């Protein structure tokens, strides 16, 4: 069977309890349409990670899809304020927030990508986060080094500008943690602004930073990062975000998910 799938088919590959690394950063190039489909399918017990998130993790918290969030920062910025459904889910004890430094999220993914059990990192000073990690003796010199454990995501979920039917994909502009996620994860699912020919990818080979061999699904979703931005195609939508942030209950969330599809 080919890798090009519908959003519904692609999201159904994800099992309850899977660990997902979600691409993009804050409102930039998030796989938003895929996140909404996970919520529509009522996934449970997911574990999600990235350095800095807002809409995606807030929505998954609201919909009751996640048990655990590992991130350095979960909030909207400036005019949109904090991530209300994330906060409430954590404060009510429905979601376990494993606060990380953005750097320890990266270190966990690097360890997985490098095929080693942990990643030694520079000091985190007197941060309470130090208590979440073990220290090891420096085997080559003085003192101790903080060791961040490898985390192997079952899936890296990335939104890209274009991909061919084998999942070879091109990203324009900032890549954020997408590359390290794609190397660390066991499987990759791509949503893409456009499915293109192999010849098209070959013309921009230097930008084809995601090789297709771990890609299990390619879904064409034009505007798939919305309400987030996809540089240089479209900016984030303040109107859409304000609408999302005005949803107060699960009825409202259901209407929103029915309406905003994909």
């Amino acid at each position, binding site marked *: 069977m080919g890798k090009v799938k519908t959003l519904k088919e692609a999201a159904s590959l994800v099992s309850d309890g899977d660990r997902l690394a979600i691409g993009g*950063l*804050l*409102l*930039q190039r998030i796989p938003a349409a895929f996140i909404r489909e996970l919520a529509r399918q009522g996934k449970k017990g997911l574990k999600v990670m990235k*350095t*800095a998130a807002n809409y995606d993790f807030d929505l998954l918290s609201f919909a009751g899809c996640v048990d655990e969030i590992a*991130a*350095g*920062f*979960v*909030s909207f*910025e*400036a*005019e949109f304020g*904090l*991530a209300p459904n*994330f*906060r409430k889910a*954590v*404060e009510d*004890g429905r979601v376990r*927030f494993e*606060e*990380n*430094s*953005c*750097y*320890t999220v*990266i270190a966990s993914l*690097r360890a997985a990508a490098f095929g080693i059990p942990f990643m030694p*990192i*520079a*000091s*985190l*000073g*007197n*941060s*309470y*986060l*130090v208590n979440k990690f073990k220290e090891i003796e420096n085997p080559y010199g003085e003192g101790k080094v903080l060791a961040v454990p490898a985390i192997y995501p079952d899936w890296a979920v990335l939104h890209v500008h274009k991909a061919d039917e084998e999942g070879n994909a091109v990203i324009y*502009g*900032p*890549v*954020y*943690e997408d590359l*390290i996620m794609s190397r660390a994860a066991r499987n990759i699912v791509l949503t893409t602004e456009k499915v293109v020919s192999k010849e098209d990818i070959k013309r921009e080979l230097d930008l084809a930073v995601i090789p297709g061999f771990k890609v299990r699904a390619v879904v064409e979703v034009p505007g798939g990062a919305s309400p987030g*931005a996809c*540089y*240089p195609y479209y*900016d*984030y939508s303040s109107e859409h975000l304000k609408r999302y942030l005005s949803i107060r209950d699960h009825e409202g969330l259901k209407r929103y998910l029915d309406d905003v599809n994909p």
Partner: protein
Amino acid sequence: MDREKKLLIANTMIVTMARLLKDAQNVFMGVASNLPFFAIWLAKKLYNPGLIWLNIPGRVNPEPSFPPLSTVHYEIAREGSASLTLAEIFDMSARGELDVAFLSGVQIDKYGNFNLSFLPDEVKGRVKIQFTGGAGSALIYPNSRRVILWRTKHDKRTLVERCPVVTAGGNLYRVVTSLAVFKREGKERLVLESIHPYSSYKEVAENTAFPIHPAPFTPPPTPEEIALLQEFDPEGVRVVEFD
């Protein structure tokens, strides 16, 4: 608070932070860093054109044509002199090569530690109020040479005796709030360095939960500084944090 007052506070904080960058080699701006964005932009225009501006979109020395509301907006990635990913900027900090970084906390204590993590419910032993998380600060604060903390609020819930949770602590350079500037005496405690011209010692003392001593006024923004900011930001993106 009326718009004039908001602009006065924003301008004062921005120029105060910009002047702190006069001798900086490089400076990092993270997520949700509206006022540092303007401070770095102004410092490069007026005081330190060679300053290397690092940011999350990963473009060295961006050339934004307008001030975006988000400091990870792709306008910051559109132009620049080279690319350096966020992970690589963190690595730079880990190696001790990051000179100045802007960070912020919901609570800042008299030792210069801050809390951006959560307020604990001491009785129930769990999270009472979840904040945003400290982003990269736990790495950046102890490993960068000079950290400038900034905060658009200044009250006793913000400037506290001791943070119940320390998200990050380390190499503090200055704390710039809506009312005043603090520096650290030795390795220990924050001391008041200056009071913004529209405030007073009484107001700062009443709104700070640890003891302070009198200090001179912060030099006010110059007409040139204000004109540049107004030209770059006629819509007033720089007051959004005060709404």
